[in-house]
């Protein structure tokens, strides 16, 4: 057996290991379990999927797609625990609306109605709560959705962090296309709707403890129009997913695994603002793993990629949309990055995330 045979054997063994049923080894929850990377994925699959298992949940998509009577509905939820609550470009209220609207939108649904649950810490300024509620209204108006029911809890000082918001949303799916990472096939094109990482870096800098100044603002926005535009323009849309916790890299890995394809991304093609890159270099992190709250990754039929990007670019939120890669056959289940330098490397799911509490 040659060295490279042996290496290949080892690598195959690793791939088998990677696909094994996840197991939570820790006895206690750590921040990594909430950071959106591998630990989160493991926790969700080993605890929640295991407990609640049903065919809809198994998709682990942005939204659950439900058939209720004659209607196809999308249902989703997210809890928001961002710190700081107010940051350049938005606040937890914008996130709470846009995040849920986006999970509906990228599922191909027209977002309609939202619920809002507030967990407020004793001592939280009422003026801040009003500010959050006002932002939510603004964002809801912009997304043309309505907050139709809610709930309020107050926890003792020291049992919360100002205000947590959980929204759930319902949308209606008015077409009969199937969307989802498992619809992706070789030859498809991978698109991002705009420059990546603005939100995560903005939050990190907004905490103030890094002493880094910038003019960055969060990209939080509601993507329902952009998603609808893409669906209109490209019949061959395979999937869309908002690149939140875990960033674009995590979405791409989900695609590669669900569709058993290779996703090959051109580093050069990925839109990243210079400031995002600068902050990321200073901190030693990779923008591909940094959260956005107003960008999605879409995979479309390779033949439709130009049309798709043009449609996105016609909308202000998609002005810098770009094809960033292609889908191939092998190595199945992996994301490869062609570096600007001309090399190729793997782009795996992140284990821990340097950015907790970003949404």
């Amino acid at each position: 057996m040659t060295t490279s045979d042996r290496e290949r054997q080892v690598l195959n063994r690793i791939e088998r290991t990677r696909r094994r049923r996840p197991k939570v080894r820790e006895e206690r929850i750590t921040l990594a379990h909430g950071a959106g990377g591998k630990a989160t994925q493991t926790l969700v699959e080993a605890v929640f999927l295991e407990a609640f298992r049903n065919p809809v949940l198994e998709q682990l998509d942005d939204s659950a797609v439900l058939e209720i009577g004659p209607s196809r509905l999308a249902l989703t939820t997210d809890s928001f625990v961002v710190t700081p609550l107010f940051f350049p470009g938005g606040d937890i209220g914008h996130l709470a609306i846009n995040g849920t609207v986006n999970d509906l939108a990228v599922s191909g649904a027209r977002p309609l109605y939202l619920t809002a649950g507030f967990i407020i810490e004793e001592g939280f300024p009422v003026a801040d709560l009003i500010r959050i509620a006002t932002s939510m209204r603004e964002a809801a108006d912009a997304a043309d959705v309505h907050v139709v029911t809610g709930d309020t809890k107050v926890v003792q000082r020291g049992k919360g962090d100002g205000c947590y918001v959980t929204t759930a949303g319902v949308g209606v799916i008015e077409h009969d296309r199937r969307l989802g990472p498992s619809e992706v096939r070789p030859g498809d094109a991978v698109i991002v709707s705009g420059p990546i990482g603005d939100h995560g870096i903005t939050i990190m800098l907004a905490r103030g403890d890094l002493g880094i100044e910038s003019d960055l603002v969060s990209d939080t926005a509601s993507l329902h129009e952009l998603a609808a535009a893409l669906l209109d323009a490209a019949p061959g849309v395979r999937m869309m997913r908002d690149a939140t916790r875990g960033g674009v890299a995590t979405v791409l890995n989900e695609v590669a695994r669900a569709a058993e394809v290779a996703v090959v991304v051109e580093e050069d093609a990925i839109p990243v603002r210079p400031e995002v890159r600068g902050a990321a270099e200073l901190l030693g992190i990779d923008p591909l793993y940094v959260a956005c709250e107003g960008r999605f990754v879409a995979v479309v039929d390779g033949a439709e990629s130009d049309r798709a990007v043009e449609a996105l670019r016609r909308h202000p939120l998609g002005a810098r949309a770009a094809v960033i890669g292609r889908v191939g056959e092998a190595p199945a289940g992996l994301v490869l990055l062609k570096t600007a330098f001309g090399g190729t490397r793997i782009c795996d799911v992140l284990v821990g995330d340097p950015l907790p509490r970003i949404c």
Partner: protein
Amino acid sequence: MRFVDEYRDAGQARALAAEIAALCEPGREYKFMEVCGGHTHTIYKHGIEDYLPESITLVHGPGCPVCVIPMGRVDDAIHIARQPGVLMTSFGDMMRVPGSGGNFFDANAEGTNIRMVYSPLDALKIAREQPDLQVVFMAIGFETTAPSTAMTVLRAAREGIDNFAVFCNHVTILPAIKAILDSPDLRLDGFLGPGHVSTVIGCAPYEFISGHYGKPLVVAGFEPLDVLQSIYLLMRQLKDGRSEVENQYTRVVPWQGNPTALRVIGEVMELRPYFEWRGLGFISHSALRLRAAYADFDAELRYELPDVRVADPKACQCGEVLKGVLKPWECKVFGTACTPETPIGTCMVSPEGACAAYYNFGRFTRQRVNAT
């Protein structure tokens, strides 16, 4: 990004690759060790190996300061963090390094308060602003980082901030290189010298390598063209039959290093008689501690440390990987029991660790790239 993007040009890389290939003697195998984990990271992150002929092998060296921290020191740090009122701080890289009872995140889950900082000065700032806390900074790193710690201790002393201490784990690069050169099981043709360490210590200290041991060394920058060019310079030396210390990274590294930094280190710190390196065992005069004059800021003196030597896990072959004897994938637990998610060894933790770099960036690429 100036001084970065210029050194990532694919066209020039192809040219350099052609020159390197042209320097290869048919039938000869070349093995170069990149001493510094930063280089390991660059190599995998940019896919530099894609430009190298099969006959050149890059061997990953011991220069990842996170990777060489032994388990016992992690345990000591957690022990300090468990003392009432203590806020332990360190660089993000340390958070996932396993001690015998878990890493810093696990410790936090059980009640300690260990936070990442960007700079030791940030730890000092917390101490200044929160006098009720005892802020300890776990200092790690080679000569690159030691001056920052020393400057921070000097400032703490000047300001009289008495709720600040340093848990000093600084190591020095030369004894580690020497240990490798002295190890019988490794044949190397040359070294990529650690670029950022050299900004501090300069290039002259490496001359024992090219002189006594007869191995060429090129101080290398961290962009991919820097690395390729340094390999080219090494190949030239071999071709020419030279064995010298060369400086590829002249835009950043002065031959004489940074005298201020060296002075500051010398003022605040002194060599320890010996120090344990993970996987490499005890190495004489290979680490720094605070001088007696700064004992007030020395966490090792302020807190009674268990200081128990913890044997590395049986399956762990980090020592062999750090010495370049094994490729990461040759470790029996690589990628199965030992993954970035569940690291057994330190080399799987730091992004500069050889195992992590190979697992995260490098695996599969060489043989599969053309498939897609």
